[in-house]
């Protein structure tokens, strides 16, 4: 079992080194990530009532939910790489992260247009007064530096360690995004709870992995202190 699964992940990893296969896989992920937006746009243009009696609410909900899902998928890449031993998965992380940012931007844009009808005094009042909007807005603002520095050139410019430090902001973004959903719900928190649980697993994995690493180091070098 172990041997076959190892060889399978090795084979996948090997395949992902081929430019064509990688490009194909990226294109597929890209299409999949854009599909919800395409489906939404299609309905808005052709048949808004297919989105229910309150199409604006549906659009806001769908874009927000996909921003959150893609964000969690982005955060799932590192644990998945370690568990499956398919290191090549890292090549899809930027695509997923940028898709999450894209949905976040559309989500904010819809709120500005549909909910607040471009009245900016009301929008700033919302951001200041309403915790769920404050945290949602903060999450998106914090994603901007991450999106800007997502290019290879930016990694080179910043240097690997500094780049990584900056991109740890994504943990804060994810926590704020889940809070945003949680605080928005009127009474039934089942859905936000599911996202919170997934995020807890993804962050918990990292905490445990780090603690293990530390204790492993500690036993190797007992005199290091």
């Amino acid at each position, binding site marked *: 079992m172990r041997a076959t699964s190892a060889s399978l992940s090795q084979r996948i990893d090997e395949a992902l080194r081929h430019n064509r296969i990688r490009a194909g896989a990226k294109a597929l992920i890209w299409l999949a990530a854009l599909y919800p937006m395409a489906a939404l746009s299609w309905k*808005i243009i052709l048949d*808004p*009532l297919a989105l*229910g*009696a*309150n*199409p*604006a*609410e549906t*659009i806001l909900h769908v874009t927000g939910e996909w921003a959150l899902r893609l964000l969690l998928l982005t955060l799932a890449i590192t644990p998945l790489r370690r568990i499956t031993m398919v290191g090549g998965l890292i090549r899809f992380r930027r695509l997923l992260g940028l898709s999450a940012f894209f949905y976040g931007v559309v989500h904010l844009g819809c709120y500005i*247009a*549909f*909910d*607040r*009808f471009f*009245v900016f005094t*009301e929008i700033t*009042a*919302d951001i200041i*007064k*309403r*915790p*769920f909007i404050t945290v949602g807005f903060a999450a998106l603002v914090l994603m901007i530096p991450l999106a800007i520095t997502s290019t290879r050139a930016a990694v080179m410019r910043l240097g690997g360690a500094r780049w990584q430090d900056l991109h740890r902001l994504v943990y804060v973004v994810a926590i704020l995004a889940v809070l945003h959903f949680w*605080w*928005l719900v*009127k*009474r*039934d928190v089942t859905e936000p709870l599911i996202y919170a649980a997934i995020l807890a697993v993804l962050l918990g994995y990292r905490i445990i992995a780090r603690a293990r690493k530390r204790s492993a180091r500690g036993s190797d070098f007992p005199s290091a202190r």
Partner: protein
Amino acid sequence: MPRPIDVPRIAPSELTPPNVWLSRRSLIASAVALGSTGLIGGSAQAAQIIEPLKASTGFPSPSDPTSDKKLATTYNNYYEFGTSKSAPAMNAHRLTVRPWSVEIVGEVMKPRSIGIEELLAFPLEERIYRFRCVEAWSMVIPWIGFEFNKLAALVEPTSRAKFVRFTTVERPSEMPGLGSTVLDWPYTEALRIDEAMHPLTLVTLGMYGETLPNQNGAPIRIVVPWKYGYKSAKSIVKIEFLEKQPVSSWTKAAANEYGFYSNVNPNVDHPRWSQKRERLLPALFASRETEMFNGYGAQVASLYAGMDLKVNH
């Protein structure tokens, strides 16, 4: 001396009217038919009792056109059938709305139970009201009913009656949402007596020219057009006249968000969202600026003279 045996008289409301048992038979027949083709559960609407209702017209309409009936009957908040907006339209057909009677008790001279037939026999009137949900969307709905004060006159409230509480039916076998603890069941809502007796407060039995669909609160609900929608309790089984102000379901759930009065008020925000504007469904843009008392200020503002509506929200 032996007391005369008190034979309980069966009110017409306790009898199942023929159209209902006939429709139940046809429902069973159609269920059997559907079952044989593997489509059971498909005839969801069949258990609803939708019948034409005669009503006088002429009550002044709002400036916006009446909302599409499909919107009003598929986008509902009725947590007893589930917390999503589409759940009530999917699940409410399970509610048995005949026979039905409403118990009217409390600080009244003549407490009594009143059957749905007797309620339907009141002279009915069509009232096209704006409907503003606390969630900042609105519709324009042609309700059918009669003024609550006419119902109150039957039971003669005493001078101690200061509030009126409405209780929604609680039937776990027919209402899947009752399994959830989102609210403390049964759903209750209340009005101050002068609000209840106001001519705009409507005992509502129908909409769009027909009896109420179950998801809209069949067979009898209250409609209070200058307040947020949740104040207008659905599928009412009990009306109590009370001396003390009761705590209603939403206030109990979150007092800072849902006050006793809940008058539509663009100047008092819900703690989590602005009430300044609303989306008149199905519009994408919330371009409509919310009016004080939902546009019924000329009629009801005097009820709140001298009150701080920020405190009494």
